[in-house]
């Protein structure tokens, strides 16, 4: 008899995550075992950067101990080995996000990915103006009179590159506002997006509010306007199942260091037919077909956007991180973190003098919560929590316009990952409950 599992039986066979499993997971993360200020470390700053499991640390070490060489050149043994694991890593990441191999471009981080797109789009108009490259560049390029649309909740990384693209090209930057509960005003989005809109760039999940944006509806509005749709997946790719083809976005970016991998590696996804005609952003070695003293012809994607020697060990480590997440199951991770996020918000809402940003308890949010403590500055809140071994982020979380919209300059943010227990959240809540009395407000 053939053993075939239907998705429904699979679901039953895989139980939800619990504290016992998280305690086992924590054994894979050496950094989490330490004491900070005499107290067990409670790490709730994964929204800023995540910690690395041993399998990731070892993957990078193994590369340097056994395979280190420049990729895509040289005929020697190590060069071949290095190229193989580097390109295997690309396939692993492509599978991780539901993309094709050639649509998966290495970057340093999401910020570089977004800058790459914005510069490639202004280069597209320069090329089109001089009759260079593919005929579609004329329609892809951004120029005077065009519109670029972002949202009011964007991280600076998904705002400033578009401000600068508007500046370079004479296009206009507009934004979709949020309501007081931190949701995008979709009625306004429908009004703002029109025939002149060339780019719609938005975050999948807010790094401050915790909201998950309605990607499907936004993509539909973008399609209707004929705009390129750019997804900032920094707070989603590490935490929930992501399939860029199902979402039907044109571009997506995320950073490795927020998903258990080292710093210095990120990913840009782009639809192949667009990537293959877009002009490059950085130029130089490894991305060309032929070069004369006057000009160069470029390889198709992904090499087209990977000038210079690449971040090889980091790519290998990122693939190990993706494997770690896939083995744990991102749907399970997402459910667990949602539970932690709800626990945070419900707990914070019950403490006098606390204002939580974004959706209230009971409404969908990812595993993070940013909040304001009446009468106490976020820096002081963070310092107080640190004295109890609790690591959180304080400041504007690279979202100044969003904070201004909410009438705040700085907030405190706790962000969880698959290695956090409900005890971590409870320790955090207990400490927050003591903040105002410590500062005598």
């Amino acid at each position, binding site marked *: 008899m053939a053993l075939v599992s239907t998705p429904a039986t699979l679901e039953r066979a895989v139980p939800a995550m619990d504290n016992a499993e998280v305690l086992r997971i924590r054994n894979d993360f050496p950094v989490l075992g330490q004491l900070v200020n005499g107290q067990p470390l409670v790490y709730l700053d994964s929204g800023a950067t995540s910690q690395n499991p041993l399998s990731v640390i070892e993957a990078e070490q193994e590369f340097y101990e056994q395979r280190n060489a420049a990729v895509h050149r040289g005929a020697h043994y190590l060069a071949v080995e290095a190229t193989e694991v580097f390109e295997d890593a690309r396939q692993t990441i492509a599978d991780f996000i539901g993309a094709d191999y050639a649509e998966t471009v290495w970057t340093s981080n999401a910020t570089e990915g977004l800058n790459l797109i914005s510069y490639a789009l202004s280069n597209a108009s320069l090329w089109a103006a001089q009759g260079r490259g593919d005929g579609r560049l004329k329609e892809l390029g951004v120029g005077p009179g065009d519109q670029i649309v972002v949202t009011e909740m964007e991280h600076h990384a998904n705002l400033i590159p578009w401000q600068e693209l508007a500046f370079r090209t004479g296009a206009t930057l507009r934004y979709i506002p949020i309501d007081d509960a931190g949701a995008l005003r979709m009625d306004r989005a429908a009004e703002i997006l029109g025939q002149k809109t060339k780019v719609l760039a938005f975050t999948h999940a807010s790094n401050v509010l915790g909201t998950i944006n309605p990607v499907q509806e936004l993509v539909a509005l973008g399609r209707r306007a004929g705009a390129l749709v750019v997804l900032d997946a920094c707070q989603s790719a590490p935490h929930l199942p992501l399939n860029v083809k199902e979402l039907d976005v044109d571009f997506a970016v995320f950073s490795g260091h927020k998903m258990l991998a080292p710093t210095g590696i990120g990913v840009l996804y782009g639809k192949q037919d667009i990537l293959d005609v877009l002009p490059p952003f950085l130029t130089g070695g490894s991305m060309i077909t032929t070069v004369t003293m006057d000009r160069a012809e470029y390889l198709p994607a992904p090499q087209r956007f990977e000038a210079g020697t690449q971040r090889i060990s980091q790519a290998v480590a990122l693939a190990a991180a993706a494997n770690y997440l896939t083995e744990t199951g991102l749907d399970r991770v997402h459910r667990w973190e949602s539970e932690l996020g709800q626990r945070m918000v419900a707990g914070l809402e019950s403490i006098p003098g606390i204002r939580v940003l974004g959706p209230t308890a009971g409404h969908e949010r990812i595993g993070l919560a940013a909040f304001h403590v009446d009468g*106490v*500055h*976020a*820096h*002081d809140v963070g*310092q*107080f929590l640190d*004295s109890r071994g609790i690591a959180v982020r*304080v*400041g*504007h979380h690279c979202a*100044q316009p969003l*904070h201004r919209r909410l009438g705040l*300059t*700085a907030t405190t943010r706790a962000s969880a990952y698959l290695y956090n227990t409900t005890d971590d959240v409870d320790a955090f809540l207990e400490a927050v409950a003591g903040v105002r009395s*410590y*500062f*005598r407000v």
Partner: protein
Amino acid sequence: MSLDQLYQQIILDHSKVRHGSGLAGIAAPAGAFTGQSRQLNPVCGDEVTLRVAVEGGKVAQISWDGEGCSISMASASVLSELAEGMTVDELRAVIGTFREVLRSRGKVHADPEILGDAAAFEGVARYAARVKCAMISWVAAEDALNQAT
């Protein structure tokens, strides 16, 4: 080092009283030379705008507006109380001493004879991330002094 050594009572008190706070409500003495400086900490969005009025070689008044953590607000309050009546040279010297203590990572002790209430910020020197908070108004005062003299 305990949190209480960082957040000494004197700092918590000053962060609430905010001596010298309210630029618009405090008129500079007529005939004084004034300088004004706005300083920002881009990391946390803290900011201080501070005005120094100098009359006859002496600091006649320091007033300021700002928003930030208890350390930055208390530091501005302590500074404005401490500086009034000092000669310009004395204030410059005190700013230099304060900076030296704050940047010493706890190696240089603060002398209350020289720094007065500002000696309470000695503990901040051990928290590298908070040194800028304590310094922000002092940097503004230094800049404003240069404009006023």
